[in-house]
């Protein structure tokens, strides 16, 4: 029983990483109706920026904030400079551009920051003062941060005018323009926010999975599964999807299918969700009018 509980909590902890990355994917999707395959690489790159700041002696909290801000700027810049010229292109073109970004950013990170695994500090205390060893302080902190960020994002979309404007711009650009929304900047904002979210995910994940240029590559598939499972347009759904995936992988891996089938299991989840409920557990079903 103890082991089961342990696996469960462990699953929640790793699930919070998937949740955070999934949140970034949702953000991009809500703002642009596109899925950015390069999201993970951006997050990884931001984490390296944070590491560089920390190595320069900047205290963690300030480095954390600075990284979020610089990721935001990078995200906006990418949208304005790279994605914007392709806004009228057929759907295949952005896919290739994303791929170009993915490969380029990965290469840039390896070149600038060295491909060797490096350690990344955690802002949370090292040892569990609360007795139980099921979750380390970092894991608890990570879950907490994810939930807080989640709350902020949800509130942003639900309760602020800006959030509403962003949703409108993605849903119906033409009408949005008519009511005075600057659609172009809404897209850029979406990219910036997604990038910032990704950087948080990266900084939370790095102490656990070791920082190297391929860090996010492994997480990405699970994050996609999480985002799809929860509903790619729902900021609550995607993180819940993340936790679900984390728990399922751990429990299924430990008790049902064996640890060798965890990745195929994620694949199966993706395919099943796409087939039977493409809008995910909590997403809205979209009807296309002919």
């Amino acid at each position, binding site marked *: 029983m103890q082991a089961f509980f342990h696996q469960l909590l462990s699953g929640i902890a790793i699930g919070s*990483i998937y949740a955070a990355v999934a949140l970034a994917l949702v953000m991009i999707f809500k703002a642009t109706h596109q899925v950015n395959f390069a999201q993970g690489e951006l997050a990884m790159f931001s984490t390296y920026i944070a590491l560089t700041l920390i190595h320069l002696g900047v205290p963690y909290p300030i480095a954390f904030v600075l990284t979020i801000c610089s990721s935001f700027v990078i995200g906006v810049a990418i949208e304005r400079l790279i994605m914007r010229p392709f806004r009228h292109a057929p759907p295949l073109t952005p896919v290739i551009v994303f791929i170009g970004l993915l490969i380029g950013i990965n290469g840039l990170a390896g070149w600038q920051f060295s491909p060797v695994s490096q350690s990344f500090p955690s802002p949370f205390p090292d040892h569990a003062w609360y007795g139980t060893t099921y979750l380390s302080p970092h894991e608890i902190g990570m879950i907490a941060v994810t939930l807080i960020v989640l709350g902020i994002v949800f509130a942003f979309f639900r309760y602020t005018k800006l959030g509403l404007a962003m949703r409108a711009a993605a849903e119906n650009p033409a009408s949005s323009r008519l009511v005075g929304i600057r659609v172009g900047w809404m897209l850029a904002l979406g990219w910036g926010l997604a990038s910032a979210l990704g950087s948080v995910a990266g900084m939370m994940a790095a102490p656990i999975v070791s920082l*190297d240029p391929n860090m996010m590559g492994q997480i990405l598939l699970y994050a996609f599964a999480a985002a799809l499972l929860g509903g790619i347009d729902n900021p609550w759904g995607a993180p819940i999807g993340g936790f679900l995936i984390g728990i399922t992988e751990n429990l299924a891996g430990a008790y049902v299918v064996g640890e060798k089938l965890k990745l195929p299991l994620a694949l199966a989840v993706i395919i099943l969700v796409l087939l039977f409920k493409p809008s995910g557990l909590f997403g809205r079903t979209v009807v296309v009018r002919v």
Partner: protein
Amino acid sequence: MSKRNRLVVTSGIALAALTGALLVSGCGKKKTEGETAAPSAPTSNTPGVTATEIKIGQTMPYSGALAAYGAIGKTEVAFFKMINEKGGINGRKINLISYDDAYTPPKTVELTRKLVEGDGVAFLFGSVGTAANTAVQPYLNEKKIPQLFIATGADKWADPAKNPWTIGWQPSYRTEATIYARYILKEKPDAKVCVLFQNDDFGKDYITGLKDGFGNQYDKFVIKTASYEVTDPTVDSQIVTLQGAGCDTLISAATPKWGAGSIRKVADIGWKPLFFISNVSASITAVMTPAGLDKSTGVITGLYLKDPKDPAMATDPGMMEYRAFMKQYAPAELNPDDANAVFAYGVSLSLVQVLKQAGNDLSRESIMKQAASLSKLTVPVGIPGIEINTSATDFRPFAQMQLGRFNGTSFERFGDVLSAE
């Protein structure tokens, strides 16, 4: 023209062209430089060898998932730059051509062939990766080209009967695991052992080595194993499972990223087993530091090279020589504390020894013969007491290791030099 007619015409043209080409080819083929035609006995006219130069080649994963090992290639290239500045070996400069295969076997084959047929190298040296070397092994053995000191610990390279032109260098993973097993048998005969292993050749070689070491007591000692894939972000789940099995000894046959993860999780859940970690993960920069230096304290590994972070090594003549080389010749992005660089230094020195022994007979056969005739060779970065020995029947240069325990700063060696033989 109708569809069918067009099909016929196209095929007809193709066939005609094919026939024509065959006829033309019967008139004799063009040979290009560097291409060895038939596997005849090599003479002193070995490709790549002139009176002033020896050209050698390698493939390295400078990009892709194993990019961290690119440091090996960079160090080796720098090393031979140093050798050349000091006059070369027996008056010949060494030209090391290093290509990036991104650890994809089809690319490795292509680049290796380019090295042999296009660049005309004398032999291959130090290529990284089990799959990569497996892919080119048949080609190189068939063409009788030495595949020297390849950077992988897979045990299958030690097979002079089947593949007389291929030889490894580092202690094989199987050797290492056998040494761990022997140690446990001797020091902790009532141990309950759990094994975490990477689910590929690397990890499975460890299991085989443990079976060698424990013999028919394997099932008595090893009560649970758990594997992980390189697509798993963490090994948390596996560690929890292993602890639940009630072991007091853990062997982590993992590569750096997951080695660090296993150390971290073991510490986080408050488990304190007798903890062995594979030599490839015994890297302070890539494993112990990310995992947490205090969490890594107590972890044991098998060593054959000196630990660059060991404070005692600051005054060790061998390591000082290594550091001087790194400072002067290595590109700035390489870290002298990187165990990969130490490795590269050691293996390069071994090659120098082989070439020195070959003297002026630099035929491929001679070079291979000398690689298989190393006797009690030591390198300055190797642990005292550990020697390199090869013979016509022994293609395992290293068969010994000494155990070291991490004390928070470096690996402290203890006990005797252990052998797997």
